[in-house]
């Protein structure tokens, strides 16, 4: 009698130190990596810790390392990443491990602050909405980099982050690029100076792993290249009052 096909799944258990647990999970025609993790938690290992929320690629909370590469697990089909019926699932690289598949995102979120990637408006609720020309070059550049879901995949994919944990990393610098192209942002010069300080833009080697793995197909590498060009022109905030 032919047995139903199954996947051999190795899952990281524990924190910084831990061990690999192996599970056999039924292989199905349509199955995401997150489905596999959920099945393990429901059927085999109720104490397995992992994160997810939307299951449709919007919230950015389900990223893990799958067979050595960072993925958004809810939108990654098993058949796309499986090797010889094997899946190896562990937390994102470059971040402290808390438990099982859950890592501590704080260092990643901190990079937004350190990079000055915080929007600061120049008007208040009594002002009319500011008009932005959708056809302007800066608006188009910002739009191209805008849809980040903060999943941390690029941060995990970046070798410079691996070597130097102080490096601001692709996601925060990509966000800086959108702000510097946003005429409603009031802190252009301050944001630029923070992004180009030590362990900032000039630490990037342009090797493009961030763009290769970003699940929503942004290119932080191109955004950082844009920031580097700004340095070349001797960045001066375009707005008169700064």
């Amino acid at each position: 009698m032919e047995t139903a096909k199954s996947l051999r799944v190795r899952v990281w258990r524990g924190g910084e130190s831990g061990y690999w647990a192996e599970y056999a999970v039924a292989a199905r025609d349509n199955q995401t990596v997150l489905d596999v993790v959920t099945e393990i938690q429901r059927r085999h290992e109720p104490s397995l810790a992992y994160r997810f929320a939307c299951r449709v690629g919007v919230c950015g909370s389900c990223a893990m390392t799958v067979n050595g590469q960072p993925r958004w697990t809810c939108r990654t089909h098993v058949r796309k990443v499986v090797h010889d019926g094997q899946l190896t699932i562990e937390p994102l690289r470059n971040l402290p491990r808390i438990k099982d598949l859950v890592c501590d995102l704080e260092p990643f979120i901190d990079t937004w602050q350190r990079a000055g990637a915080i929007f600061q408006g120049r008007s208040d609720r009594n002002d009319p909405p500011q008009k932005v020309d959708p056809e302007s070059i800066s608006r188009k550049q910002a739009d191209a980099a805008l849809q980040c879901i903060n999943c941390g995949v690029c941060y995990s994919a970046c070798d410079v982050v691996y070597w130097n944990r102080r490096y601001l990393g692709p996601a925060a610098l990509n966000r800086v690029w959108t702000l510097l192209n946003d005429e409603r942002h009031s802190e252009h010069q301050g944001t630029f100076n923070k992004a180009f300080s030590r362990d900032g833009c000039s630490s990037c080697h342009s090797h493009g792993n961030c763009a290769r793995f970003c699940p929503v197909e942004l290119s932080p590498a191109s955004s950082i290249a844009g920031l580097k060009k700004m340095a070349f022109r001797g960045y001066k905030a375009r707005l008169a009052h700064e």
Partner: protein
Amino acid sequence: MNEQALFVVQRISAAMLAPMVLVHLALILIAVEGGLSAEEILSRTRDNVGWALFYGVFVVSAAAHAPIGIRNILREWTRLGWKAIDGLAMVVCATLLVLGMSAVIAVF
């Protein structure tokens, strides 16, 4: 110098080094043609202000370019802080300047 200035200096010096390395390689090939003894080479380089200037600029570019690049490598591959890294980069810069300039002067 802040990071922005260092970044710009490194890329400008790279842009200068690229053609200069090619000229240097071409010169090596041409120089071999007329014999390779120290005397023969010196006879062509002595009192040649053009080449002294060319190699002077070459040395300065390399002495600016390499230490800035080494900062990133040290940051990635060691646990040194920025102060120590900047200190080491200055040593590399000074070494390249002294070695390079003494070579330029020796053949002038």
